[in-house]
């Protein structure tokens, strides 16, 4: 793989949920380069979450070709997931969840550490570093269930950064964050993108995107209806216009 190869390449991909009689995503083609910042928009139920889980191989691809970080997603999704961070949508933990913040963040490296191996110094160092990146070092020893929703979201973000991912898939990462935290995370994302990490973010709020060209992808009814580069301030308009498009007429 050379540097110019796309880090995510989907060709005519169909994805189906287990037990469903027809695919949820149909005929998806998408090519994303290293260090791109991708904003995914579209109405509820359009297939945004499904697209992210197709990319990291958590869902069954019935047709088509999917290559992420040079790995065939249909071959071994586990290899892909070790190199791709995925922040799940709407997560909240019960107050009695028996895990501390530090344990949760370390868990982000479990796949890369591999079966039958124990975490080593470098793993704990990566945990420290990503707690620091999110400014939550002081929460390290706290049980995750006793944190606020926004703090929990930051912990899961730190979990994903802990394995130094090449690609970050973020499903509505701002839903529980206050405006300061949002700005903070956005600055962090801009920095990550600057260092060559590819970020795909599903969001309904487009106001504080990083100040650089982004690619906007709009989904509707399991298809990609728009995929193009634009300045950040045009994203909202493009998503809006796509919503008024022919499929709603």
């Amino acid at each position, binding site marked *: 793989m050379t540097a110019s190869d796309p880090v995510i390449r989907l060709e005519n991909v169909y994805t189906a949920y287990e*037990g469903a009689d027809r695919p949820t995503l149909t005929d998806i083609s998408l090519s994303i380069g290293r260090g791109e910042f991708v904003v995914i928009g579209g109405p509820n139920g359009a297939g945004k979450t499904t697209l992210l889980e197709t990319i*990291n191989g*958590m869902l069954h691809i019935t047709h088509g070709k999917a290559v992420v970080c040079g790995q065939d997603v249909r071959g071994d999704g*586990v*290899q892909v*997931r*070790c190199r791709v961070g*995925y922040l*799940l949508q709407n*997560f909240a933990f019960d107050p*009695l*969840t*028996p*895990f*501390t913040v530090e*344990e*949760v963040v370390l*868990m*982000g*490296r*479990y*796949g*890369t*550490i591999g*079966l*039958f191996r*124990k*975490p080593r110094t470098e793993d704990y160092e990566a945990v420290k570093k990503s707690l620091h990146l999110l400014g939550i070092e002081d929460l390290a020893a706290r*049980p995750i269930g006793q944190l606020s929703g926004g703090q929990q979201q930051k912990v*899961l973000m730190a*979990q994903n950064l802990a*394995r130094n991912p090449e690609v970050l898939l973020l499903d509505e990462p701002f839903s529980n964050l206050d405006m300061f935290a949002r700005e903070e995370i956005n600055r962090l994302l801009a920095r990550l993108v600057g260092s060559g990490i590819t970020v795909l973010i599903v969001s309904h709020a487009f106001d504080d995107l990083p100040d650089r060209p982004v690619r906007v992808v709009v989904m509707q009814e399991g298809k990609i209806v728009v995929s193009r580069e634009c300045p950040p301030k045009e994203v909202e308009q493009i998503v809006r216009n796509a919503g008024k498009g022919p499929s709603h007429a």
Partner: protein
Amino acid sequence: MLEFIIPNNIVCHAVEAMLFASVACAVLSVIITQVQISSIGFTMAHAAFAGAAVGMFLSLNPTVCSIVAGVAVAFLIGPLSDRARLSPDTSLGLLFGICMAVAIFFIAYMQTLGQGFSAMGLLFGDVISLYREEIYLLAVICIVAIAFIVVLYKEITAIIFDKRIAESVGIRVKPVYYAMLFVIALTVALCLPIIGGLLLYVWLVTPAAIALQFCNRLSTMFVVAPTVAAVISISGALVGLEYSLPVAPLTAVLFSAVFIAAVLLSPRRRVTFRKI
């Protein structure tokens, strides 16, 4: 193995059996309660019970039959829910009913044939008439259960945390999950003869429930649950044999008493009260 402390052979064997069975069940009870698969554990215990009853009736090895039945149930739940369009909860309810029906039918039938005595052991457990090999086997399964948790600690704790997050960080969730069910099925089948099909479930849930009252870390729970279970089970065996009381039922009652005491004394509960 413990003859040097307990000279009486019968008592010694009973204590050994209860020790190994309770430790194996207790470490697994942490998984069962935390992954929230207690209804699977429950159904597997009864499947093992039915398997043993059928095995006994057909003069096959009851232990092998209960292993087969327990494992079969673990692997049937998924497909059954899909095929019959039932929720996993409903299919477990169904399987549980079927297992009980089969077990009770064969036990009742054996009673009419005059083989009732050994069948009663399946219901309430029997710590007295154990073969030495059975105790060795219990020691082995105890080690297997502990080794399983030690070796796959990362994977198991991640699955306990959340199955989908475990998958997203690159853990092979399905094989580990099925290995979990397999070890539970093995343990259940081997502990069945001494604890009995009706009470086994107490050993598979109560130790973790007691530990949960005092621990807020998973690692401490994995230590506290088997320790508490071992103390209660050994006390049950010693007291039961000394005063000629049925050992497994007595121990089950002790477990419940300790659980109630734990809930009343729990520091975690006081925290909740203070918050309100």
